[in-house]
């Protein structure tokens, strides 16, 4: 807990980062940068969890554990995603998301 800083501050921060991440996800043209935006989103969630845990429910460490697991899963997700992106890159020689539109309609 940080003196003089209210919970809402953290939450607004988390929300902003979350939507910045979403904005990035929606606009970045590169698959890998999209993935990075997704990481932003996850991190925003972590901030939320940690803040809640600290400010409201410090008796248990639920928020912290959740954040831990999120980090772990984010890692696996990135691993798989990167491998798929690379395999795609090998096929179409591009990681521009707008060129990934063979499947449509």
């Amino acid at each position: 807990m940080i003196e003089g800083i209210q919970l809402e501050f953290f939450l607004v921060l988390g929300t902003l980062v979350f939507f910045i991440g979403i904005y990035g996800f929606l606009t970045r043209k590169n698959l890998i940068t999209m993935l990075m935006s997704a990481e932003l989103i996850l991190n925003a969630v972590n901030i939320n969890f940690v803040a809640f845990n600290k400010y409201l429910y410090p008796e248990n460490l639920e928020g912290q554990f959740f954040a831990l697991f999120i980090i772990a899963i984010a890692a696996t997700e990135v691993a798989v995603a990167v491998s798929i992106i690379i395999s795609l890159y090998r096929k179409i020689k591009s990681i521009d998301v707008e060129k990934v539109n063979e499947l449509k309609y």
Partner: protein
Amino acid sequence: MENFGYIVIVPFILLISFILIGLAGGRFKPSLSGIAGTFSVFVTTVISYITAFSYFSGAGLVNGVYQKIIPYNTEWLRFTDKLVINMGILLDPISVMMLVVISTVSLMVHIYSLGYMKGDSGYSRYFSFLSLFTFSMIGLVISTNIFETYIFWELVGVSSYLLIGHYYQKPSAVAASKKAFVVTRFADLGFLIGILILSNITGTFDYSILTDPNGPAIAQGSTIAFMGLSVMTWALILVFMGCAGKSAMFPLHIWLPDAMEGPTPVSALIHAATMVVAGVYLVARLFPLYALSAPAALHFIGYVGAFTSLFAAIIACTQTDIKRVLAFSTISQIGLMMLALGVSDYGGEKGLGYMSSMFHLFNHAMFKALLFLCAGSVIHAVHSNEMNGMGGLRKFMPVTHITFLVACLAIAGIPPFSGFFSKDEILVAAFEKDFVLFIVSMIIAGLTAFYMFRLYFSIFWNKNNEYKDSPHESPSSMAVPLMFLAFASLITGFIPFSKLVTADGAGFETHIHWGIAVPAVVIALAGILTAMALYKKESGLPQRITASLGSLYRLIYKKFYIDEIYLFITKKIIFNGISAPVAWFDRKVVDNTMNGIAAVTNFISVKIKSFQSGQLQQYAYVMVSGMIIIILFALYLWNK
């Protein structure tokens, strides 16, 4: 009272004959069919005569009144406890009389046809249908209730259809049969609705209740009013519409002249003697109802009859097809019968019109059948229907000539032939009731004499045509019926009809009213003489007269363009005006609406395909904004 149960044999033997000939007809020698049919009608005739004899000789008589006897009645279809269609037999003076008429004429026609139809490919079919017709016609007259009448009415109609269309490979015959059926069917619609209304207000179909002068039906009749007339009147007018269809009253007469496309014996049987008088018969059957509870309807009938009669008589003067002349003459005579009914009252002497109508019906059946059979004989000989192609036939066909002359005299009302007696009674009845109708009937009498003798002279006198193969007298099987019917036309006038067939069953005395009879005969003679002057010798006079009449003649010759009006109504209005638009509407509007729903779905489906653009970020965008929309939506609901 005698039990008349044996009459049940009549319809059955005819029905069996129809089915047997119909099913097995093709497999046996044609003549066998003819003989079988004739035999069954012969049995019918014998039974009819026995019945008539025993009925009129007292078996039907109680206290001087001829009773309605129902020897047989069985439930056929039940609507409610009261509304029941029975199949039964009702004997009263008119039905017994009709039995005699039908069986006699039918037998004569059968015998005649044995010779006339020889060699026809549809020989068995013809006799089978004749049996069917006779069956239906007899069923019609002996019906115990109005619905039974309706059933046989329809059957009569269909057998008429079948017989008119006997030469079914001839388009004109097919068209004529179709026309006959549709027109009468249209009239029957009125009849049916009439029955429905009648049964609804009286609660019964049964004649014995409907026509009981003291019964509840007549008492209830005039209570409810609709558009100024009592409902009963409306119902009876509608029933009369059916009668008008069958009996070819104006304006539903158009089918009858065309019906002459059928074989001539059929015309004699159906379209002269029996079926066409069914309308008259039905009015007579319901007469107490008409007379006692809806006199307005009866008036209406009288005037329709008079108009039709005059109208047809005028047309008959101009026609050149001999069968058509006879057809219009038939229409005219039936109109006269209707007129007679229209001027009649119920009960005792006041029922003179009724009695005269029946009397005329009876006589007319005989001499008109005779006329047609003679005409058939002539056509058989010269192979043409056209008057112009005939002339001078008296030398070749003496029997036909004489019998035809007898029939002409009878129809013209020259004493002592039968027509004179019945026509006299009609004139008397009209004179007593309605002077206008009396005058009209006098004119008709004159016209009748004129056109009949025009026909007679044109066929048997006039010029001596050159015939390719010289005409010869018909074989005996055809000649015998002619002679029999001629004999009948001579004597039936002397039957004391007023004692036997009256509206209330009680007989009364009639005698010839010379004050009316003499002028009538004079007028008739005048007509005959005019015809003789114009047509006995070949002369240009008739042409000159027609030329001077100009468009009026054309108007009459074209039968007042009634056919064309009908054609306009059916072709232009029904076909092109209703049916074609309905069919168009169905395909284009209703159906396209249904198809349109499908098309719109497809259209939307094509339009929204860009949502699925393949762009991952668009997917994500839809997902996020969709979520936000759902949030807003839920917030909105939550705040409410």
